[in-house]
């Protein structure tokens, strides 16, 4: 029962915040709504027995990534980064909404019809499911190669950022 309440409340906030991200004009507000969304998801992760991921969600996403976003928005805001008032692509806008709704309808239909037939792990959930220990062990054994590949990816990103923004060679 508790999970259902959490799901309904947090889910509603998350969707509302998500829509707000897309709708509001000011990028700063968008970013803040995105943070709200991320926090809701973090709590849902907890509900779903994913403690480690929930913690990361707060630390990495809401913490680091969104701060970066806000930082850049503030940095660029000085000269007024807001979208131009004119809307050259009104038709595209309608089209996009239709497309999105179509996609949504499709995914919903699929989820409703397919969910009953999803394969299931069965049994009860282990007590420490989703704990940092278990996730960490998995990460360093079976997933050690992707884990290492991520480090290369981060190195590339680092080099990339330097290349793109360093003023003089």
């Amino acid at each position: 029962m508790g999970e259902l309440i959490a799901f309904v409340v947090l889910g509603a906030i998350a969707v509302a915040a998500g829509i707000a991200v897309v709708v509001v004009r000011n990028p700063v507000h968008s970013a803040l709504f995105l943070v709200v969304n991320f926090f809701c998801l973090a709590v849902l992760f907890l509900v779903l027995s994913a403690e480690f991921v929930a913690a990361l969600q707060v630390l990495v996403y809401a913490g680091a990534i969104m701060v970066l976003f806000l930082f850049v928005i503030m940095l660029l805001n000085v000269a007024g980064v807001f979208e131009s008032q004119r809307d050259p692509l009104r038709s595209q806008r309608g089209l996009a909404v239709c497309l999105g709704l179509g996609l949504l309808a499709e995914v919903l239909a699929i989820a409703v019809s397919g969910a009953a037939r999803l394969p299931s792990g069965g049994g009860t959930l282990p007590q420490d499911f989703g704990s940092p220990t278990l996730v960490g062990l998995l990460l360093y054994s079976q997933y050690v190669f992707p884990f290492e590949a991520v480090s290369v990816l981060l190195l590339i990103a680092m080099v990339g950022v330097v290349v793109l923004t360093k003023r003089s060679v």
Partner: protein
Amino acid sequence: MNHSFVPKAADMLVVGPETIVAAAAMLILLAELMPARISKAAAPWIAALGLLASFIPMTTTGISVRTGFSGMVVTDGFAVLMKAVLAVTGLLTIGFSTHYIKREDLDRAEYYALVLFAISGMMLMASSANLIMVFLSLEILSISLYVLSGFARTQPRSQEASLKYFLLGSFASAFLLYGIALVYGGAGTISLAGIANAIASEGAARNPVLLAGAGLIAVGLGFKVAAVPFQMWTPDVYEGAPSSVTAFMSVGAKAAGFAALARVFLTAFGDIKVDWMPALWAVAALTMIVGNVVAVAQTDIKRMLAYSSIAHAGYILVGLAAANQAGVSALVFYLAAYLFMNLGAWAVVILAGRRGEAGTEIDSYNGLFWRNPGAAAAMGVFMFALAGLPPTGGFMAKFYVFSAALQANMVGLVVIGALTSLVSVYYYARVTVVMFMRDPEPDAAPISTRGLLGVTLAVTAAATIYLGVLPGQLFQLAGLAQIARP
């Protein structure tokens, strides 16, 4: 948890080529600790040596099927051949880059490091045996390419190309990711072998969640290979990015995308190919039609080549849509042939261009024959090869792809392919008309073919003709490009 934390040599061998390439990239970065003059001069050589060294593990494993890192990665005939294609792409890219990045004032060692990182991502893509590796390697190559597209960071066109590529690329990645999530839910696993088993043994085959996931994965990878209707980023990005980067990604990203598409769809979703073959049929047909028809209207050679690369993605998709072994072999052969003719054409674009990405209008090739007969002749070879005329590798590639599709009884698709090839003859021939049958502008100076760029041109032209006359060996090799079925 019976897996060791420490990778074994056998594991490393599976991903040997990409590891060596990535290590070479890091070496280039380390070399920057030395004086700039030395590190700059050393970078292309380190890169070339790294790419050459990556052939060592390829020859060691050969076409044997091995998996590594708890089944995360796999090497087989297909993976090794795709990696070879990518390594050659990298070598040729270095060949035409040295001159170009000096001319455009982009001469920084990071350029080569990023090219190598991208190649390692592309290679990893060909070896991915798990959707997590598909996603990661896609990101490795994409992020490298985002940065490379914006490498001319003071050029607005390059910046915008980078931004557009980045936004649409991440958009596509998000589709891929959501698709993976749905497949995970539908099949209960993200390993390709596991998905295939789930489809084969359980009722997962008809689960709409799984099918929707497969569709979204196709969309995500379709963006990477520029298949219609996910091609809209291509012309702008190709036009705006530095020419050498465009050349590189028009072959490399395409090869990687097709490697992933082929592996994911033929292994994980191989048993439900009746579901996706018609969709792929339609995408292939659309891609060939749109790419070729829109290319006719282009006046800028970079945009023309961009649409042409869309069209060629269509021909490669024909091989994939055939969903048989001949199709996979044809895909590998096509990419190998395409790599030479397309990189060669871009090398000419680089040679004929001027500082600041000027001189890319097709009209500026007026009378190129008088200004540099060798380059014009080579461009002629590439144009006829891209149009699919014998005796060039382009013809053999199309022949192979069409054969594979006809083996799968896709007559309609092949007829569409043949007719769109006819359209392509028109716009490729136009380039030869301009080069050979018009007089140069009075103020146009002769162009000299410079060092490494000239070598690259000669190599690509010779290889294009060689593959058209004696394709037997590569046909045979491509025949070994078997994707290991779990």
